[in-house]
């Protein structure tokens, strides 16, 4: 019993607290108005995954024996150092700026007189008090979310691909290998490059190794506890941009999204089906996390860009966001591109297919952004943020020939 409780605490530490601390460490790159708990958590996770990718893939390619132990050791060291720095930064900043440094999710801070007078504040980004009706909608959404998480644990779904992906995680945990044993039968093989670079299975194995929980339990019963709320968090962030001026609509939007997910099993191909029946698989994360994340970052950049398009009337040089409030540090301008690069790395962890699709999606969305930003530099941003994808595909091609 005590052993189980300790395992749960350890896995909660590695699933929630450490990525959040990493997020705190690096959230200085976010514009103040976007430095919320939710976005800090998303950012932390993207960095957390990116670190894993740059450690796991070289370990997998370099070490013949005990590759997974090396991967686990290096990843733990790096994450613990970053987390310690995150704690240090939290203490420093909280002492200096108080609790308002981190705005509270799901809204942002309530406007104080200081906020309203500050040239750095954007009143539209500040949360209004939700009405009782909105709170009820939030409550219903929270119940639906809780139901989905509970059902993910108490209901099991059969999917044949688990015989591959879940066993890869378990092999890493039990045999200390990284994709060098055939999951179906157990014989030794060379690196199966088609799936090997998608190291999300190894990340799940990492959680299993540090917590001592069986990798199959982590895959089927633990990962949904992270991924299901995470996906909805991304949709909340999307909704906050879409309904910037009427935030009381957000819970209704979330209700509709969660209903679409729960009743989305119209075929075996939909993201909803993948979301709730194959949550732990890279493909499910690509279609439910990666693509919405990419859309969200572009909505963010569009919100920051000028109101009129290249096709519209003469530019008013006005944005819908914080830029007009003089918060225009160069880092804040490039931060969404950094975010996109990190999302691309996450995409590679999930699936090689995600890398190609993600690059294409960014290629299309950047054209839309160009219409409004009217700045050729966005092309440069897009080109730079897909460098991780290019490197990934290069490694893929080299190894597969």
């Amino acid at each position, binding site marked *: 019993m005590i052993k189980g409780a300790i395992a749960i605490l350890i896995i909660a530490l590695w699933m929630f607290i450490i990525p959040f601390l990493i997020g705190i460490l690096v959230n200085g790159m976010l514009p103040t108005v976007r430095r919320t708990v939710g976005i800090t958590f998303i950012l932390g996770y993207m960095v957390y995954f990116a670190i894993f990718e740059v450690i796991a893939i070289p370990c997998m390619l370099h070490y013949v024996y005990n590759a997974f132990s090396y991967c686990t050791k290096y990843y733990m060291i790096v994450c613990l150092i970053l987390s310690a720095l995150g704690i240090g930064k939290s203490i420093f900043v909280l002492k200096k700026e108080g609790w308002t440094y981190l705005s509270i999710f799901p809204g942002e801070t309530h406007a104080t007189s200081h906020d309203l007078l500050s040239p750095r504040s954007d009143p539209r980004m500040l949360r209004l008090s939700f009405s009782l009706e909105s709170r009820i909608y939030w409550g219903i959404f929270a119940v639906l979310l809780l139901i989905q998480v509970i059902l993910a644990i108490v209901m099991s*779904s059969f999917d044949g691909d688990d015989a591959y992906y879940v066993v890869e995680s378990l092999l890493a945990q039990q045999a200390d290998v990284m994709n060098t044993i055939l999951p179906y039968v157990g014989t030794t093989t060379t690196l199966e490059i088609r799936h090997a670079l998608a190291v999300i299975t190894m990340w799940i194995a990492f959680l299993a190794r540090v917590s001592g929980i069986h990798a199959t339990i982590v895959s089927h019963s633990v990962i949904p506890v992270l991924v299901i709320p995470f996906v909805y968090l991304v949709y909340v962030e999307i909704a906050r941009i879409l309904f910037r001026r009427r935030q009381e609509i957000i819970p209704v939007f979330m209700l509709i999204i969660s209903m*679409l997910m*729960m*009743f989305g099993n119209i075929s075996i191909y939909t993201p909803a089906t993948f979301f709730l029946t194959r949550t732990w698989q890279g493909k499910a994360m690509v279609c439910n996390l990666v693509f919405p994340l990419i859309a969200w970052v572009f909505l963010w950049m569009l919100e920051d860009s000028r109101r009129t398009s290249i096709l519209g009337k003469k530019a008013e040089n006005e944005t819908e966001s914080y830029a007009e409030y003089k918060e225009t540090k160069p880092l804040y301008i490039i931060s969404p591109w950094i975010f996109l690069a990190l999302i691309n790395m996450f995409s590679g962890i999930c699936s090689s297919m995600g890398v190609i699709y993600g690059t294409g999606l960014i290629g299309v969305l950047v054209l839309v952004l160009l219409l409004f930003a009217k700045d050729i530099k966005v092309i440069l941003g897009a080109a730079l943020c897909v460098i991780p994808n290019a490197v990934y595909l290069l490694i893929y091609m080299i190894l597969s020939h």
Partner: protein
Amino acid sequence: MYGIFMECWVALKLYGGNGALLLMFIASAIYLVCVEESLKKKIMLGILPLIFLVGFLCPVTKIVYVAVFDDGKDTYYRLLWLVPMYMVIGYGACKLIFSLKRSMYQRIAIVSAIAIIAVSGSLVYASEHVKLAENLYHIPQKVIDICDVISPDDGEPRVRAAFPSELVHFVRQYDTDILMPYGREMVVSQWDYYNPVYEVMEKPEVINAEALLGATRETKCKYIILSTERKIDTDLESMGLNLIDSLHGYNIYEDPQYDF
């Protein structure tokens, strides 16, 4: 070209199931194109998703996709994942609901929207592939119990066991120290692999015990797990195997000649 277009159309129909989601999506996107004041949102949630959908149906897209991806014919539907259908439907519905003037109408519209989604959709948990979990592993308890009988102790060499095809998906999800002569690759019919143990254990209506034993010894299996309902021409015990346990309708035989 028309043939390829029809393939794309069929892929779309298969993706959309009863078509309600696609209808809701197209209606929402067109609605947003018509009423959304913000050009940015109109493009992102109205025009662009519709262009993606048209692009999906375009034969050239499929030709390029199949040329790029080895398994392009089977995975073409995944391009539809790039269409933010849920976002478009959610935003379109909210836009419509909150364009209503009176709060009571808005409340009725919210309930109606939720009801339409529920009635026209299909609950994930009602799927034939979803059932109550027997344990936290989410694999059948009978597999766990059988594996616990044959699993090697710490420090002992791994063992190989021939399982019936209905169990092969789960065995190594529980214990990777149990190897198998064949696994899921034999169960997926379209892959069409050959395996000597599978040929004699799964294909015949009545198992030829001698052939089975020959194949399992050839592949160095220590254990054979057979359903008690499976017909076999000769009792395996009479051929020298030990019946070490019988669980959940499966007999577990150990081959004493296992010496490698």
